């Protein structure tokens, strides 16, 4: 676990970037879930893959951040965002790139997106408040705190309560002018460890321990970027908790990264069935019929879900 100090100066944040990033860097590049570990519902290898490999670009961005090559980092993260615009981690790291370039205004824009897409990303709340303070906008920094308080008021016992409380403590400290010690969520692991963590996350899901799975998958996503297998299971775990809008958002990121991802196409279809959007579910089934040239379990399962609804 890495600790670093955030002070009320962007230069202080800059000096911290490399420390936080170093921890991520020790993770090796693309996880091998689909090939070796959990599988995750399968990627198709179809021809509709996006121009960039977001997971690889995410790692490139981290490498550049670590080397304090902020413009290059920004370029890499913008490529990730061109595919997965709503990935909270990438928005956060894009904000860090702009912070490194001493552009708190643009940094704030991305931090804001990061907390919008994942309100549990405590570091992004703190960085957002910091970037407002760097712009001399104490009022906006104060609003970050009040937004957090509102979120916490709605979240008694929710999945992200601990993260929100951590963010609140951090932002409060910033506003009171004191230095804060922020624990990074980036944990150093080797590739095999990441595969294992993913494997365990899926096991947690099988035991209906969705809150724990979300925390674990979130940590893997922070380290690796928007891998569609991870996004898919984040969607699944949220869906099982009845958090349909978050679930749909994660499925959509998975499908933005890999439009032919069988698991995400199936589970999005199941979400539509659960939320009474039968026509959309049928569209997902049609998509799977196209993707699964030789049939697939995902197509078969979704067909069953839709048939169960038929009068």
């Amino acid at each position, binding site marked *: 676990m890495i600790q670093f100090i955030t002070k009320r100066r962007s230069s202080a944040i800059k000096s911290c970037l490399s420390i936080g990033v170093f921890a991520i860097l020790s993770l090796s590049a693309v996880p091998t879930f689909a090939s070796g570990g959990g599988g995750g519902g399968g990627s198709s290898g179809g021809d509709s893959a996006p121009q960039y*490999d977001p997971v690889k670009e995410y790692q490139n961005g981290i490498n550049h951040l670590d080397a304090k090559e902020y413009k290059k980092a920004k370029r890499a993260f913008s490529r990730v965002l061109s595919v997965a615009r709503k990935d909270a981690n990438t928005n956060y790291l894009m904000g860090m790139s702009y912070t490194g370039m001493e552009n708190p205004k643009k940094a704030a824009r991305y931090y804001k997106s990061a907390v919008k897409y994942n309100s549990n990303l405590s570091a992004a709340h703190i960085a957002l408040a910091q970037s407002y303070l760097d712009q001399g906008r104490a009022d906006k920094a104060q609003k970050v705190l009040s937004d957090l308080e509102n979120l916490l008021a709605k979240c008694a016992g929710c999945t992200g309560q601990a993260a929100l409380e951590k963010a609140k403590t951090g932002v409060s400290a910033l506003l009171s002018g004191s230095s804060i010690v922020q624990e990074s969520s980036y944990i150093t692991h080797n590739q095999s460890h990441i*595969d294992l963590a993913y494997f365990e996350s899926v096991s947690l899901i*099988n035991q*209906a321990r969705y809150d724990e799975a979300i925390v674990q998958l979130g940590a893997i996503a922070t380290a690796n970027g928007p891998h569609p297998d991870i996004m898919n299971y984040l969607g699944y775990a949220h869906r099982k908790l009845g958090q349909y809008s978050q679930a749909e958002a994660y499925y959509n990121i998975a499908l933005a990264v*890999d439009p032919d991802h069988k698991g995400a196409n199936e589970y999005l279809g199941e979400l539509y069935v659960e939320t009474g959007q039968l026509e959309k579910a049928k569209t997902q089934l049609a998509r799977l019929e196209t993707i699964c040239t*030789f049939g697939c379990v995902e197509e078969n399962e979704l067909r069953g879900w839709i048939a169960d609804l038929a009068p």
Partner: protein
Amino acid sequence: MLACTDPLTRNNEQVRTRPPEILKWVRPDADIIEVLTSEPTECLSNSVQGEQSQNIILGRAAFRSPYLLGGQAARQGLSCNACHTNGRRNEHFYIEGLSNNPGTADVTNFHFSAVLGDEKFNPKSIPSLVKSAKPKTAETKLAQEKFILRLVEKEFEGAAPSQIVKDALINYVRSLGGKTCLQTQFVGKDVLDFRIKIISQELTALHTLSPEDTQTVGFLRLAIRAELGRLYHRFPVSENVNAKLVQLSGMLKPKFSVDSGVINAEWREIRTQMVKEYDRSLFSKSFATKWYKN
């Protein structure tokens, strides 16, 4: 691997493809050429050798089909055959988190089953079914049947199979082994020939099933399509073979009604083409070596 990081995408003359499914269940340091180009022989007892009954063929289809299982196992394309290749032991089988050595699996892992999962990492050596497949008494037969169904339904979260599929599966498992069976390997073209034989027999069995038995027909169609898919990934540069495999799979889609004569003619053409293209397939040791080591 992901579409966007597909290591096999190389140049224009090669068809974009994924690695054959079997490579998902091996350790990264496995000898993938050996994994691809050899496998243990199927060893059926004397009583069913030669002209195999439709029931045994359906049982084999179930044994090789991920659709028999459910949950994570099915989504990963696993089947009974993934661990017990042709009824024997897959000595290469390895999944991170499930295996500690090649040829082992922790079958009481929450990854596959919420019912039978435990908190322990206790992988066991995968057994060959050839030696243990022949219960003699009514009691041991019942125990074996219960054991198989427990694996399918509890361990791998499959839906209860229909009575026909269940009986066929159990008969197939019981037919494995026999005194005259020698522990030999299919190598290279033998592996391809065996796959061709399986599909040929399954198509014949499909045509003999009653159309009213939609459940079994649907199940067998899915199994055949999965088998065709496994062949597809073995011919990464043979566009003609692949196009025909896709076409045949399309004919076997649910609710598609295609004359059996048309299907058989299509299959005969594919078989001929695949045999011709063997040297450019991942059943061929020289091609596989070139493909993966270049």
